[in-house]
């Protein structure tokens, strides 16, 4: 099977950009990615892309140039970006193309995601006040915290790290450090999670140029290689976002399945990972996802986080770009943002937030509705 390399990365600033559509932010990301790879749009043979709320990705060809390339839209909830990357990699592995693009972008209204689960008059779930993703994240960490001894202080430490790392990231939305006490004192949105522990729906775009690994050096002196890209959906018995009911029996979630499959595909274990970007919809998610992705046992996070192990200078730096908490969550772009950050870290181009010690292996993880998870592993 042909190996796949990432040879160009481009991002439109995350946050709020008035007067620039989500699609246009995707266009900017693509232009920056092809420039980074040292090619032109006319050299791109294929593209996979998507957004949740900002339109069909393939319409961006009218801005980028009508070259006639194969452009396929991807819509896969919170794993849209991960699915675009996975599918683009498959196209190269299958030998269909040599070089192409994965792109994701989005632009969401302010406030919590407005979720509709049925047509007018049938949407009992939303009508009853249950269609909020925030409730799920709160209920999952509330049960987990009681069971495994995770304190509110630890949740605040995770969020404080996100804002601190975001302050070092010129592409991030939230760039002002906040103290743990400020985070704990902010309004309680959904017990035990306060306002500053949550990420917000936002805007942004990310594009990646992928090519056959044996051609990578035509484009860059510092290619990164895609060692695994896995998408998994939920199985019976797992506890997932926006579920009116769950089974009596417990099963691990799609994150555990995706993570194990990715390690197997890459022939790499969690101990080999030098930097990880883990879905931090809120601070509790980062804590639980550390265990679900195999980086620790349940409950170990309390000590690890207190001792700074997930800081940029720590043993396992997590969410070095500030994660979703500091970048916001434009759904279509969010998973690709994590890969973008990892490419910077592996190239040694992450500036003041560069992980020391010349990292070689980097991991990304997305989780979202309706119980879906995407994992990638990159190496130099």
């Amino acid at each position: 099977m042909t190996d796949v390399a990432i040879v160009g990365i481009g991002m439109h600033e995350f946050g709020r950009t008035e007067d620039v559509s989500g699609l246009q932010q995707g266009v900017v990301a693509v232009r920056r990615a092809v420039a980074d790879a040292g090619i032109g749009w006319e050299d791109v043979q294929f593209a996979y892309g998507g957004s949740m709320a900002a339109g069909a990705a393939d319409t961006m060809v009218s801005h980028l140039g009508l070259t006639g390339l194969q452009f396929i839209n991807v819509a896969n909830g919170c794993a849209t970006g991960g699915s675009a990357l996975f599918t683009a990699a498959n196209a190269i592995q299958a030998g269909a193309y040599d070089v192409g693009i994965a792109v994701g972008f989005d632009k969401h209204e302010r406030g919590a995601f407005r979720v509709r689960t049925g047509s007018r008059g049938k949407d009992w779930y939303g009508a009853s006040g249950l269609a909020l993703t925030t409730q799920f994240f709160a209920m999952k960490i509330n049960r987990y915290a009681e069971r495994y001894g995770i304190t509110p202080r630890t949740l605040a430490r995770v969020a404080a790290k996100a804002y601190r790392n975001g302050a070092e990231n010129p592409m991030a939305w939230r760039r002002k450090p906040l103290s743990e006490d400020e985070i704990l004192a902010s309004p309680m949105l959904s017990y035990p999670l306060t306002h500053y522990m949550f990420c917000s729906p936002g805007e942004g775009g990310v594009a990646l140029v992928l090519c056959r690994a044996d051609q990578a050096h035509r484009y860059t002196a510092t290619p990164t290689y895609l060692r695994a890209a896995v998408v998994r959906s939920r199985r019976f018995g797992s506890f997932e976002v926006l579920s009116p009911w769950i089974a009596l029996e417990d099963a691990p979630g799609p994150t555990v399945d995706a993570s194990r499959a990715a390690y197997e595909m890459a022939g790499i274990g969690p101990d080999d990972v030098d930097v990880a970007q883990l879905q931090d919809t809120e601070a509790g998610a980062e804590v639980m996802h550390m265990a679900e992705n195999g980086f620790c046992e349940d409950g170990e996070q309390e000590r690890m986080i207190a001792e700074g192990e997930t800081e940029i200078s720590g043993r396992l730096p997590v969410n070095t770009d500030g994660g979703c908490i500091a970048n916001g969550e434009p759904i279509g772009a969010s998973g690709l943002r994590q890969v973008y950050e990892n490419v910077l870290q592996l190239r040694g181009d992450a500036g003041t937030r560069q992980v020391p010690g010349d990292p070689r292996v980097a991991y990304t993880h997305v989780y979202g509705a309706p119980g879906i998870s995407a994992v990638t592993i990159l190496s130099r």
Partner: protein
Amino acid sequence: MAQVPVVEDILELSDEPHLVGSRCRSCGTHVFPRQDGCPRCTATDMERVALARRGTLWTWTVQGFAPKAPPYLGDTEHFEPFGVGYVELPHELKVEARLTEADPERLHVGMEMELVLVPLSTDDDGNEIVTFGFQPVEEERSS
């Protein structure tokens, strides 16, 4: 004022209101709301069942801000935080529901809960639209 359920076929109003689910005749799995295929064993032989009215709290939170309307039908102008949780109905399933208790000090995993009706708003005909929720069993005894 007459009461109407937020959606038919989810919630049956009677002296003893109850949720309506499906049970798989092949493997016994319960689901809510009703569906025609079993997510556990993939069989398609599902029967309509009334779900249990009592259970235990499995996890919980408190909804601290007004949900967006639409789709929310409740009062967003004079919003009062409400509890949300999963209640484990013995031998059936865990159902997500509003809770009548919104004080974190008075909510804990494992407490006994029972089904109640929760008013959301009034329809054009003057009927009270109700959804379902669970209240702590102790609370009822003391009142």
